[in-house]
């Protein structure tokens, strides 16, 4: 079983990202479970959402404490929250930032950065980063394919909004593919 923890701020679509990644992985043939860290949601407050992936039905109901993958939607969170907590060696952290990460990184964890905010602004016209990070997650981890992610986005959004989101995910997917291969 693999586990993903998404860190974001209320309003950035972390729960939606968890759901759509789960839908894409399910369509790719995996058993999945996606859920939010249940709190009192407020715009701007730190939030978390989780996804589990397995080849067998998933019974475990605890929150995710030792993630294989972490997505950080907002690099300013790194000052407030220990986003790398519990990460295992071999894990991958995908961080939305335009700057290098100066924070201490756990041993054996691979950090991959992407400027999802700029991608979102240029493709969607809005600083909503979750779609770009879903594309980046697909490219960085291979846990979901771009095709199943596109289907999940098409299912969630309608018409031109769906196509715009798929375009956002595509650009992030390609950028992350290049980053991951260069690193």
């Amino acid at each position, binding site marked *: 079983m693999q586990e993903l923890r998404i860190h974001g701020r209320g309003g950035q679509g972390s729960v939606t990202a968890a759901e759509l990644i*789960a*839908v894409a992985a*399910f369509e790719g043939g995996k058993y*999945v*479970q*996606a*859920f939010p860290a249940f709190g009192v949601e407020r715009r701007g407050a730190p939030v978390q959402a989780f996804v589990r992936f397995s080849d067998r039905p998933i019974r*475990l109901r605890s*929150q995710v404490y030792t993630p294989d993958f972490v997505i950080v939607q907002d690099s300013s969170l790194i000052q407030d929250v220990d986003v790398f907590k519990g990460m295992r060696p071999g894990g991958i952290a995908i961080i939305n930032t335009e700057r290098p990460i100066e924070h201490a990184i756990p041993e054996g964890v691979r950090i991959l950065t992407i400027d999802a905010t700029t991608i979102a602004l240029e493709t969607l016209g809005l600083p909503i980063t979750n779609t770009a990070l879903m594309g980046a997650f697909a490219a960085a981890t291979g846990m979901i394919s771009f095709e199943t992610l596109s289907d999940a986005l098409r299912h969630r959004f309608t018409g031109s909004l769906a196509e715009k989101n798929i375009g956002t995910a595509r650009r992030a997917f390609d950028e992350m593919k290049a980053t991951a291969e260069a690193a």
Partner: protein
Amino acid sequence: MALEIMEGSIAIAQAVRRCRPKVVAAYPITPQTHIVESLAEIVANDELDADYITVESEFSALSACVGAVASGARAYSATTSQGLALMFEVCFNMAGMRLPIVMTIANRAMGAPLSIWNDQQDSISLRDAGWLQFYAENNQEAVDLHYIGYRVAEDHRVLLPVMVCFDGFILSHTYEPVDMLGQEEVDDYLPPFVPKYRLDAAAPVSMGMYATPDYYLEFRYENDLAQKRAIDVVREAGQEFGERFGRDYSALIESYRMEDAETAIVAMGSICGTTKDAIDEMRSEGKKVGLVRIRCFRPFPAEDLRAALGHVSRIAVLDKNVSLGAGGTTARGAVGLEVRDALYGSSIPVLDYIIALGGRDVRIDDIKDVVAACEAGDGDRFFGLRTEVL
């Protein structure tokens, strides 16, 4: 079987649609909200031929259902926590008038202090109201128990309301795969509601009348008898469900790796999933541990528990509720009290652990700690207390 992935609440709403209630009356409350929002949309889109009655309180929601079922219509509601508390009076009326319904409880803690998070104190507090109570481990089971719930509730040997309880947030807000069944499959399994008695201007009857001391005791006796008869009706409905759809619900309890177990855990609801993973780990470490999961808490399967637990050396009960003041100087929850009662006369120690109240997360290591404490004879207490804040 065709698995689809969706949020637990949406799966419940889709299952309710397939049960074809004629009346839905509910008041939104976290974490039940997504169920009733989805059903309102389903009715508005003509995907379900029902009256959706918007009400000003939970008291009115269930009262509207009382009227609907009394007139012969299948009805549905959903609530949680303080909302269920506001239905308290109507819950007793509904069972006393022998009106069948299925109501979903997205289990949540009771205030004060205010908590929107999960435990099972809300429905447990209504255990004596006369309703049947089912507790689901996962969303597949929560969905299936709605189909089974109506079958059992409306059976003329039972005629009692049913609560399908599933853990708020932990199940209600989780996306996971479920097999929803097709409408035709549900129609074949769950025929239209045929009331035994109903309000009819052409053949008037009165319901919920005054019972003098000469009659009241007998009404309560009949109510209890119907609960007893429900044991076999649940078995039959669960078995037929298994024969048709491959998921067998004929047992009121589930035994997991109990064959040679020395320590048995007894629990209800979603905590049992985490417990099963913990048991697999403990088994691989050589510990003989098993789980008995209670799916049907009312009627209480006392005989089944005696048979399942008779060979163990000790029992740890995980209670996501607390019966405040029970147990003298030690702590008790409702499940622990009932398990002790079922095992009365046996020498097997039953130790109670009040756990996961108000949404406190439970990890595999917590279950292992409970088992270690039980082996040491240390129980009948709150588990995981943060003593530094006391």
